[in-house]
């Protein structure tokens, strides 16, 4: 029997809530019930947290950092990727160093950048961008290598300039990789951004998580987590996914 999509979503969300409620009945101190967490979410959004700021303010701060870091990582990956395509030496150098660049633990990067830059937004953005640029670069580089050389041959047979070839073939081809990379990055950058905030920033979701964690209040920590997850999912399904469908309409034959 095949269920429709809304029915499937309702069943899996329902099952999740039942599991959560069961956990809270088992140990309500460790696992505050959905009702308590939900109440806190509403309270934080409408009345604000005890620092006087609405949860929406902290969400926005974190989200803007994520946005900047993602844009920076993607921009750097594009610049480096194109340079790799244009110059063999650059390609060899980055191919050799990419694995090294991908290795340092996120926390180490965050700590070093914070020592260097200070405990501020710039540090969060720079460290997150540093961690994820190589991942974006791998996707972009892959895209540049997957290009159909027969199309380039076609373009050259018509006398297309290098500029026209980049404009009409390389960039549109890359766009699908950029988008794939963007969605992938967006799903990951916020995690590291929140970690960076936990380490030593006075605003953003991470800072509230740290505050409530230090008070030993799990319900408040959960309330912020659920809020943030909600925002990420809304962006993913209501913004990125429709944009992608529209931008790649040519694929739906």
């Amino acid at each position, binding site marked *: 029997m095949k269920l429709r999509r809304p029915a499937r979503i309702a069943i899996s969300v329902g099952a999740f809530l039942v599991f959560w409620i069961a956990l809270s009945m088992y140990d309500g101190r460790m696992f505050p019930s959905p009702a308590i967490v939900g109440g806190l979410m509403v309270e934080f959004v409408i009345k604000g947290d005890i620092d006087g700021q609405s949860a929406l303010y902290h969400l926005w701060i974190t989200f803007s950092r994520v946005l900047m870091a993602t844009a920076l990582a993607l921009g750097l990956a594009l610049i480096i990727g194109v340079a790799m395509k244009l110059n063999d030496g650059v390609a060899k150098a980055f191919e050799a160093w990419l694995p090294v660049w991908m290795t340092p633990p996120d926390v180490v990067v965050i700590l070093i950048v914070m020592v260097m830059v200070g405990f501020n937004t710039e540090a969060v953005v720079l460290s997150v961008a540093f961690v994820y640029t190589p991942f974006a670069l791998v996707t972009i580089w892959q895209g540049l290598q997957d290009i159909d050389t027969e199309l380039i041959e076609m*373009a050259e047979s018509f006398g297309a300039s290098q500029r026209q070839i980049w404009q009409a073939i390389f960039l549109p081809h890359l*766009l699908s990789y950029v988008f794939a990379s963007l969605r992938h990055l967006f799903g990951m950058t916020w995690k590291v951004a929140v970690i960076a905030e936990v380490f030593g920033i006075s605003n953003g979701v991470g800072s509230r998580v740290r505050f409530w964690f230090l008070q030993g209040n799990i319900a408040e920590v959960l309330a912020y987590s659920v809020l943030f997850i909600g925002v990420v999912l809304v962006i993913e399904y209501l913004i990125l996914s429709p944009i992608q469908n529209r931008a790649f309409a040519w694929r739906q*034959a």
Partner: protein
Amino acid sequence: MSQPAPTAMTKQSEPNSDVIEFSNLRKSFQSGNETFTVFEDLDFEIAEGGFTSIMGPSGCGKSTLLNVISGLIPPDGGEIRHNGERVEPGSFFYGYVFQEPRLLDWLTIGENIRFALRAQEVPPEDQSGRIYRYLELVGLEDKIDSYPQQLSGGMRQRIGIARALAIDPDILFMDEPFSSLDEFTAKELRQDLLEIWQETGKTIIFVTHNSSEAVFLSDSILILDGNGKLFDQVSVDVPRPRQIGHEALIETESAMMERFFAHLKTTSDDEQ
């Protein structure tokens, strides 16, 4: 050394028709320490406004020859003359139709053709008119806003032809353009290609390994053997419009293939 069969000499080229002559054309590739000769001592001529096919078994260097004529690959030696005057390889203004349509999937049909027009620096104000005119010529003007993947293989190949013609080239190069289509579609496109050719008066150089296709389409067929030797040049004097399966076409084809297989036999005997 080319030894055209007697019938090939009855070429219909009147003395005043314009020709492009190729003599002693040679091309080889270096692979490691070995030199691989694709072809050498090729002598032939192509009538302007005519339909010339280059035929031969797979891997005989047909496409390489096409690339040398077009100037995409420089020859190692030889001479090209246009109406008696020596010209550089690659000085012909050509449009290229490939075996696959090679369209840009992310652009609409109209924009795909505009791509070629922009590459040729056709003034922007002339582009839209030309796009429509050549789409009309291949019967797909209503697909101007569709994307390539929404069209059938045959339609995509028509777009490839429209794109090559839209730049208004002197020569249309076609590299096995119908070989990856099903036979029904290919048949239809051959018929249409002849109409388009008659309408536009372009010089067409058509590569194929399909002998009945070559005979049906061409005025003249250059036949390469497996060693890159031009061993026969056949002119097809059957009047147009031609009917597929017309007796004279079938006779021409079977005589041509007979000579080809006889030649294959002698060359393989020589090697033994």
